[in-house]
């Protein structure tokens, strides 16, 4: 029941989740890659030939003989970041649905978006409960900053496909499928040290917000990664600040001075995109911007980096999916680009996440067979051990990766993958080669190694 004003500030807290999740998803890859990536169009068993009829399904919410209806809940009004979330997300879902419906839908039915609800930052739980009560959606898509309703949807057994920046809210929830899997908080990634090594960095700083557990732990584990792998790459963990004030209201002058004193040349941050700009501006003011490279957790925003090309030149950004800039051979990327262009959809983070989530929904239903219902769709997707949504994301083992991963308990995912991009003249370029945009490391041996460059992990 709250809207923009009162929540914005603390709603901002949710942004931390985003920041933290972005940090964590370097580790969300899974092994395998043995299952060849299938384009959605290949799932021909789901589309009936002329004249064939699929059985009528009774008593499944949102399912009629011609349609399968989904609801979308997302944040629009009151988004303190000012980024395009709900609208862009819906664009991506619709683009996939349109495409799939042209291919004959699924089991003779069109995939349609029923209601689109703006949770206005604070009403996620109320909107989710409303969808449950209305009982006319087969599944739900969610792209929100405060995910208070996910537990209710999971309890109600509704397949829910989400922009998963909320590891805590999705943890252990078998009906919640993210565009990335649950994070591994104590896995020390090699992706960041590898970035640092590539620019010849020698002193590294890690920054996080004190007020967000996500962001704070993200900064700490980044720092520890450099403590562990630093000697191998000739870089030293030199500065850790996990107590930054959110939004940097008092500026970052003293922190930047301290980093300059420590001769830092690579900064890995767990802060939002606006704070990254403030940080870069302060480096600029203190005459150091050319000597330092930043790693942004979630500045994969084309307009934003174009605006600030000079400040961010040479910086790294890691989207959680295959970047639009990759070749995407053997993946659906070309299809995504084609469909987005045809519909005039901007290449945003959330459009891609929408597409990925929609693809997950489709795969869940088609996996469940023609007499599908909500539970069988959930079970079908949960039986996938190497799921990559058409090669757009590192493979997820849905049999284990609903649970938070831990480096100690069981070892975490088998493969650590990152598809970072570099900002050059205000546009993104893949860090690895465009053909093989993913840098991956085998987690069975956590010693320092050069990454394997992979097209579809």
């Amino acid at each position: 029941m709250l809207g923009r004003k009162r929540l914005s500030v603390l709603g901002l807290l949710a942004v931390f989740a985003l920041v933290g999740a972005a940090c964590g998803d370097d580790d969300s890859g899974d092994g395998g890659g043995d299952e060849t990536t299938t384009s959605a169009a290949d799932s021909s068993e789901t589309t009936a030939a002329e004249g064939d009829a699929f059985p009528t399904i009774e008593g499944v919410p949102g399912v009629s003989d011609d349609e399968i209806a989904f609801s979308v809940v997302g944040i629009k009004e009151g988004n303190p970041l000012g980024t395009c979330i709900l609208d862009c997300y819906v664009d991506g879902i619709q683009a996939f649905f349109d495409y799939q419906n042209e291919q004959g839908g699924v089991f003779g039915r069109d995939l349609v978006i029923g209601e689109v609800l703006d949770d206005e930052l604070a009403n996620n739980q109320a909107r989710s409960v409303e969808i449950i009560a209305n009982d006319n959606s087969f599944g739900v898509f969610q792209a929100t900053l405060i995910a208070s309703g996910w537990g209710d949807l999971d309890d109600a057994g509704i397949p829910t496909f989400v922009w998963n920046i909320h590891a805590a809210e999705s943890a252990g929830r078998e009906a919640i499928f993210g565009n990335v899997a649950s994070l591994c908080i104590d896995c020390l990634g090699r992706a960041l040290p590898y970035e640092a090594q590539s620019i010849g960095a020698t002193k590294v700083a890690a920054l996080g917000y004190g007020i967000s557990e996500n962001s704070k732990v993200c900064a700490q584990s980044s720092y520890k990664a450099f403590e562990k792998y630093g000697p191998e790459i000739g870089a030293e963990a030199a500065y850790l600040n996990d107590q930054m004030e959110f939004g940097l209201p008092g500026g970052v002058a003293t922190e930047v001075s301290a980093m300059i004193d420590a001769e830092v040349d690579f900064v890995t941050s767990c802060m939002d995109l606006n704070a990254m700009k403030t940080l870069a501006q302060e480096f600029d003011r203190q005459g150091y911007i050319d000597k330092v490279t930043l790693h942004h957790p979630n500045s994969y925003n084309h307009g934003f980096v174009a605006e600030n090309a000079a400040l961010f030149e040479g910086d790294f950004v890691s989207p959680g999916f295959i970047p639009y800039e990759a070749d995407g051979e053997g993946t659906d990327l070309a299809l995504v680009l084609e469909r987005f262009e045809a519909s005039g959809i901007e290449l945003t983070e959330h459009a891609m996440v929408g597409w990925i989530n929609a693809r997950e929904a489709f795969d869940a239903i088609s996996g469940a067979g023609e007499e599908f219902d909500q539970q069988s769709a959930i079970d079908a997707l949960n039986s996938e051990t190497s799921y990559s949504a058409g090669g757009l994301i590192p493979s997820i083992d849905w049999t284990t990766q609903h649970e938070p991963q831990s480096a100690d308990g069981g070892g975490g995912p088998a493969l650590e993958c990152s598809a970072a991009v570099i900002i050059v003249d205000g546009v993104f370029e893949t860090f690895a080669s465009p053909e093989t945009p993913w840098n991956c490391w085998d987690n069975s041996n956590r010693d320092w190694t050069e990454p394997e460059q992979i097209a579809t992990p």
Partner: protein
Amino acid sequence: MFAAGVFEDIFTAILQGTPPGAVYALIAVGFVLTYKTSGVFNLAFGAQAYVSAAMYFKLRVEDEWHIVPALVISVFVLAPAIGLILERFIFRHLRTASAVSKLVIAIGLTVALPALFDLISGFEAVAGLTPVGIIENGDSVFYDPFGLYAFSRDELMQMIVALGAVLGLGLMFRFTSLGLSMRAVVESPRLTELAGVPADRVSAFAWALSSTFAGMAGVLIAPQFNTLIAPDFFNLVVIAIAAAAIGRLVSLPWAFVGGLGMGIFIALFKTFLPRWTDDYAWLDIIEDNLTPAMPFVILFAVLVFWPGIRHAREGTDPLAGVDPPPPAPIASERSAGLTMATRVFGVVFFSFILSLMFFQADAFWIFLVTQAVIYSTIYLSITVMTGLAGQISLCQGAFAAIGGFTVFQMFDRFEMNVLLAAVLGAFIAAVVGALVSLPVLRLGGIWLAIATLAFAYFFDAVVVKFSWVGGGNTSLLQGTRVPRPTLGPFDFSNDKTFFALAVIVFVVVSFFVVQLREGTFGAQLKALRGSETAAESIGISPAKSRIIAFAVSAFIAGLGGAMLSIHQENVNYATNFVPLAALFWLLLVVSLSSRTVDGALQAGAAFSLFDPLILRGELFAWILRSPDRLPSFFPISGKWRFVLFGLTSVQFAKHPEGMLEYGKRKSNARIDAWLVRRRGTGDDDDPELTDSKSDAPVEETTS
């Protein structure tokens, strides 16, 4: 660590603290300016600043106007116009109102103004479109006077304006008759009127001036932020209050020095503390916990320890005593027949709602109505604090969060029954409430309100982070999940059973609140509210009464917070309990009725049901008998809620009993009058209820 360069480091830190310090100074000076010229503790300063900043942004960045016309429209036209409107329609009528009621109105405007501006202008923050200053290349051209730290053009502009304002305004207050008149109008509007000063015109000018300054400050500060959102401005104002408080809200130079000093102090703190912690490990605790909360710690410390504040009782107009006191709650005045009729109607109405809940409602409505009942329970804490004790607390969210977190921790660690944990949480909240009240007891009024706001922010920035509160790694992995309890044969995971529990808790708490109100404690609080000096003179201890009021209020808030967490099966701190949330709660309750249980109930309903019923048109659709006939302007933007309740709270000064009570009073008077006419009895019984102003003042003080 104390190398030769230490002095250079100190100097650098001072320079680095100067730009944020100048921002604080700018706001503090503006804040003092408003207080001096209008007597209003203007928390809405940030909202006014935001409106001009957003207007300038819209013209300059979105519509690509030239600097000068954009500045003229946003700062020299829009800002004074807002000031004049506020003065003409709100504050002109409140010159003699208490400082506390003006504070409530300022909070209302804080919420309403930005939402109104956004709605009218269609303004939305867009990532990547950054505010720009009032000078070309303000953020990219730097000047480095000492070769240590460079200032941008925007920052130099802020410093120049802040300094210029202190000098210019100082001269105006000292040497112009207008300046003197403005001060006089604040000190005693009645006396100035008697002395022939045109108080209306003077105060209109004062508002136009201070509002223009707010607009100027907003436009100057905007480049600090990468996206323009109103709460950022509000947060800066909260921080700047510490600086303004150093000058006891009346000294412009001290506000300037305080603001600058605070920026510099924080910069020094952040520069040197990390170095010292290398040598003194115990400092780690301070560094880890206080760094992000420094401004609020300073604010709290200033309020508690600064000698000026200690004695700064709110200035009272010597003639204020002629204002009539607020009317009594209506129930005590209406006729017996009407009381009975009202009760019967109430019982019927609530039985109807309850039966609807149990037999008709779907999960969605049960969820919302349960939430409404639980919020009503939380709001009873405001009934105690504001309605009974007459104090404004802005940290009720923190108290409620304590209840929620206790339930989470007790379950997570000990698997304690969550209902037991809820009661435990309420007791912990009560203890914290009492402790919080201790250092601020003697402040009273607005200072108490601000101290509670500082505590709310402190709780938010520091306490929630502790793993024994917010959950640390557990919450990182699992969130702050809370289960529904079972108790004997009752399984509260059933929504209807839980709804029944929520109703029972509300009824029990209401019963106790009514008992307290009607008993000795309520009488003592009433006495204190009426006249603290007189209450003291018959042996009532204001300190003790206030500690109890805080503890009781915190207890209720804690219990309600725990219930809310159990209901949502998660503490959901960021959604439920953040400082700004508590601000909105207060507005809701005082604009409906802070004195009665009904008021709390209706505020809870408004909070939970306003969105689906009104904004999303469910009620309208029901009246039209079909959702399809709903006009296309539904759903209405949620921002209207803030406009509506923000502006309703403006009535607080005139009708501190709340709009609900006021409405009841009026309609009761009409009905009673009608009954009397029907019975044909004389007019003698006719209660004079229609207008509180018509009750003759008790006295004409002449001294």
